[in-house]
């Protein structure tokens, strides 16, 4: 589904991603873990070209998105993204946050989008917040809305960039619950996270990144039970 070949990214002289090749298959729930500064967020942001790779190619369902001639907006419509800091639009109501993109991109009419927004909001238990503004919501509510907003575009893959890192501990659960539901429905997901429980329970594959490389990857149970690389063992011993 997403094919990454020899991806490198540097900011100035600082090399953040060093020749990464990886493939993400339909229906997979890939969880990316690793220490801060390991390049995992940058890797994720390269997948929908929020960061422009310095070298290498990324192909999404046969479209080479790193080609400057590709209309990246069309590709991004099929890739939902959820951010650490929610990034809801504070100047719009929740309903408008959700329906803006599907309506503007002519994916559906305003009425259809409103219906879809209600359905999705009901699913995450926030239907009564449709006319509220983001400033009136808690962090956990904001993040659930952000997930709904991405889902309203009916994406084929969802990218999560540390979706629970900015939340109060008691709100992490409600967001992970929504993500788990989504995973159970068969959504292809790439999740950068520090939630090892989520990685173990929901992930179908765990990637461990350090220093701009994918050092080790495995199916989650094997990964957490017998990590092979010394760096992985050291990291896991600190976080588990």
């Amino acid at each position: 589904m997403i094919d990454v070949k020899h991806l490198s990214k540097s900011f100035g002289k600082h090399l953040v991603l060093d020749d990464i090749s990886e493939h993400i298959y339909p229906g997979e729930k890939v969880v990316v873990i690793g220490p801060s500064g390991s390049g995992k967020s940058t890797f994720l942001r390269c997948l929908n070209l929020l960061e422009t790779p310095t070298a290498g190619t990324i192909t999404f369902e046969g479209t080479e998105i790193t080609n400057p001639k590709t209309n990246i907006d069309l590709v991004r419509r099929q890739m939902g993204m959820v951010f650490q800091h929610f990034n809801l639009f504070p100047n719009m109501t929740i309903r408008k946050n959700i329906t803006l993109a599907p309506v503007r991109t002519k994916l559906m009419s305003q009425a259809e989008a409103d219906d879809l927004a209600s359905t999705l909001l009901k699913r995450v238990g926030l239907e009564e917040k449709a006319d509220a503004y983001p400033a009136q919501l808690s962090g956990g509510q904001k993040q659930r809305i952000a997930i709904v907003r991405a889902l309203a575009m009916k994406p084929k893959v969802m990218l999560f960039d540390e979706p629970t890192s900015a939340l109060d501990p008691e709100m992490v659960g409600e967001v992970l619950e929504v993500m788990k539901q989504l995973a159970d429905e068969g959504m292809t997901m790439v999740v950068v996270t520090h939630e090892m429980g989520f990685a173990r329970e929901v992930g179908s594959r765990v990637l461990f990144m350090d220093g701009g490389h994918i050092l080790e990857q495995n199916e989650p149970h094997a990964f957490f039970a017998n990590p092979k690389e010394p760096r992985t063992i050291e990291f896991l011993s600190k976080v588990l």
Partner: protein
Amino acid sequence: MNWVQLYETLGQQLKDGVDLPWWQDAFVGIYKAFFEEGRWQLYVDGVLTTLWITAMALILGIVLGVLVAVIRTTHDQQRLGRHNPILALLNAICKIYVTVIRGTPMMVQLLIMGFIIFKSSREYTLVGTLTLGINSGAYVAEIVRGGLMSVDMGQSEAGRSLGLNYLDTMRFIVIPQAFKNILPALGNEFITLFKDTALISAIGGKELVYAAKSIGSKTYDVMYPYLGIAIIYLLMVMLFTWLLGILERRLRQSDRR
């Protein structure tokens, strides 16, 4: 005895060298400056012209300012490795414009426009308005640019990640938020612009200061006309400040918790 007779009686006494109490003296001065020969009409015309100049210069300033700000921000936010030569040229022109306008006094710009560039034009008010608009554009450009940069990068990233294009993201997400952030600064610029219209009288523009000056030179007394227009300017600025406050509160609606 009505006011006209009172003015004529007291005026005659003044001419005769009678020492009047200060309030009678002030009455004569004020009557002469504002009511004799229906002079208040000149102030009203002056205020209307001043408002017209402000409105026109403001429109021109905002159009120029937004244009320059968008060019400069788009140029600065280009994806790495992509260089558009036309954009680079436009950016350079915008930079020169902002530097020159902000680096020279408004008065000098008016003198150059009025007496050199449009030397043969007799449309003094129009030339003044144009100069004021061009001047304001440079300041508005920097205000708008600051406003666009003040909106968190995450906002446009969220917009773009949903598949919205650059223009839609700017139009629905970044610009409305930037506008709210820059409204106080834009309000200040508007008030500065309103007061700067007074300078246009230096090249013969027929606004409020011009009215006061011409009345003063006719009556040989500039004190009341000048004090009078000072009060008019002050009252109008207070009115604008009040209106801007209302607008700001309206726009803050989405911040309520």
